[in-house]
């Protein structure tokens, strides 16, 4: 059952039946092709039915799936020859944020991203992907290197949020994020942002300002976590489902609001069901956008990046 979500259960049961039938047929040397075909068609239907109309809360669960590919997985699957660099030169090295130099195809790119842990031990080290100020400052240090040497930047966003703790406040969590927004807006190199899992509020945006913002099909991106919104506005954290619906946090929603530029399709059920395929789609999209952006002068890049941000928001003028 590990790795399956509640709403996927009917599909899981069917897939198990198919597996059983196949191994039974193999062992008994019986031809069950017809029955298998029927069941597989049924599974395909069910898959379409379940994943075709996911609620925003179900998408949230996929975005947070413990087997979902994380930043380091994408770097590896994209075939990047990656040299990780460490530290913010101010306080420490935050393992909730990774960054470094990547040879990506025939490109040299700086990559930064939030990094969640795969198990409890790693999650403690990675602080569940919730960065401290030193994480944001490390990210900016590396992105500034990219700016200095004319290398494009790829960022992978996947965090529940910037860490809310005593040390984080003492060292200026708010300032660290604010300054990243300020500086990323004027880095003279292409920046492609990919929201791969959870885009948790200011902690996500802190490495999320770019020329192109892409979002995986089942990723989420929101101003506050559904739980946080529920506890403040609905006075009950348990009403996170309702908050997720109200805030409109899926890739489709954000495409409609003009906040992202492209939805990167995922395998049915989510990237974890076929990580290599998900990574190929991500790699293809990044390369395509980088090609576009590389044709622009630094001035044009920065001007258009600012214009893109200035267009964000809805209001009326009376």
């Amino acid at each position, binding site marked *: 059952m590990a790795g399956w979500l509640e709403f996927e259960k009917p599909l899981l049961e069917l897939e198990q039946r198919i597996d059983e039938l196949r191994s039974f047929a193999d062992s008994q040397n019986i031809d069950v092709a017809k029955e298998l075909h029927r069941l597989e068609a049924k599974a395909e239907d069910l898959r379409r039915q379940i994943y075709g109309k996911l609620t925003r809360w179900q998408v949230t669960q996929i975005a947070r799936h413990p087997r979902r590919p994380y930043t380091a997985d994408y770097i590896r699957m994209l075939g990047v020859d990656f040299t990780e660099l460490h530290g913010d030169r101010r306080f420490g090295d935050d393992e909730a944020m990774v960054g470094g130099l990547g040879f990506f195809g025939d490109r040299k790119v700086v990559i930064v991203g939030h990094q969640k842990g795969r198990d409890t031990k790693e999650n403690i080290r990675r602080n569940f992907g919730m960065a401290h100020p030193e994480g944001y400052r490390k990210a900016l240090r590396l992105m500034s290197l990219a700016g200095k040497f004319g290398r494009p930047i790829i960022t992978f966003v996947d965090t529940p949020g910037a860490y809310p703790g005593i040390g984080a406040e003492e060292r200026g969590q708010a300032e660290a994020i604010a300054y990243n927004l300020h500086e990323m807006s*004027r880095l003279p190199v292409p920046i492609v942002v990919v929201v791969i899992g959870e885009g948790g509020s200011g902690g996500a945006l802190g490495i999320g300002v770019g020329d192109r913002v892409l979002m995986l099909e089942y990723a989420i991106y929101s101003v506050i976590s559904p739980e946080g919104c529920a506890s403040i*506005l609905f006075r009950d954290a348990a009403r996170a489902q309702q908050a997720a619906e109200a805030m409109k946090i899926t890739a489709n929603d954000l495409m409609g609001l003009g906040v992202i530029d492209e939805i990167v399709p995922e395998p049915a059920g989510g990237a974890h069901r076929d990580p290599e395929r998900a990574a190929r789609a991500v790699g293809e999209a990044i390369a395509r956008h980088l090609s576009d952006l590389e044709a622009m002068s630094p001035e044009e890049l920065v001007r258009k990046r600012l214009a893109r*941000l200035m267009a964000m928001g809805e209001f009326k003028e009376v």
Partner: protein
Amino acid sequence: MKDQLSWLRRRKRGIKEAKKREMPDGLWRKCEGCSEIIYHKELERNLWTCSKCNYHFRISAAQYRDVLTDDGSFVELLTGIESVDPLGFVDSKKYADRLVAAKKKTGHNSAVLTGSARVGGHLAMMAILDFAFLGGSMGSVMGEKIARLTRMAIEERVPLITLSSTGGARMQEGILSLMQMAKTSAMLAKLDDEGLLHVAIQAHPTTGGVTASFASLGDVIVAEPGALIGFAGPRVIQQTIKQDLPDGFQRAEFLLDHGMIDMVVHRKELKNAVVKVIDFFTDDRRGTAEDTLGQARKQGL
């Protein structure tokens, strides 16, 4: 047990005392810091601070305008930009209804008052957040007004002054409110490119998405005494770490100790502090020190 009883007794005495000193509405106010009963006129004279414990009462954007600007010099700008309900957001109330109520309550149509003014003789663009309007929260309108005002500061080549008093991003506008952080910060980078000054004032409270954007991007950052300033609210932090928070945590003085702000300034000195910073960084002095002092005196500073 003994301790609990003594606490009860103390509380009882307190109640009696309060009753005895109850005064007609409007004439007197009880200090939220030290419980001192203060005559309204005295409070006004002290710019809504307690003369006994220095507690700074929360005041409206219009009151801050009067505290910070030269008499009659403020011209409100960008008044016609109003909120819509992009998500059709409903929690316990409809966002659309909350907007109507906030307008009625404050008499303003947004959570930020923007305009141009003279400050100690200097022309400046000024944005003052109004906590009374949905907690001074930043949605599309605040982002747009601050971005446009910053652009006006660039066009006029004058300093920008922001005063924050806010709970952060406006959740009812979802991701669009988050994007205002990037929008305002990006425009401030432009202001920086142009070699112009931003003085950021942080009043109680300055938290969340506003702190994580323009409020932390002042060339000089000034806070009012006792103001709560932070990224996450203390309740969220406590729930996360399940520990008691240190005394004075996230207060202006705490931020000063940790190197996050330049100064903590009493409201009565706030204007002078801002003027001095502008005096230093700008060459085109439009007033004299005597003017500034005279105006300050006239305002009872």
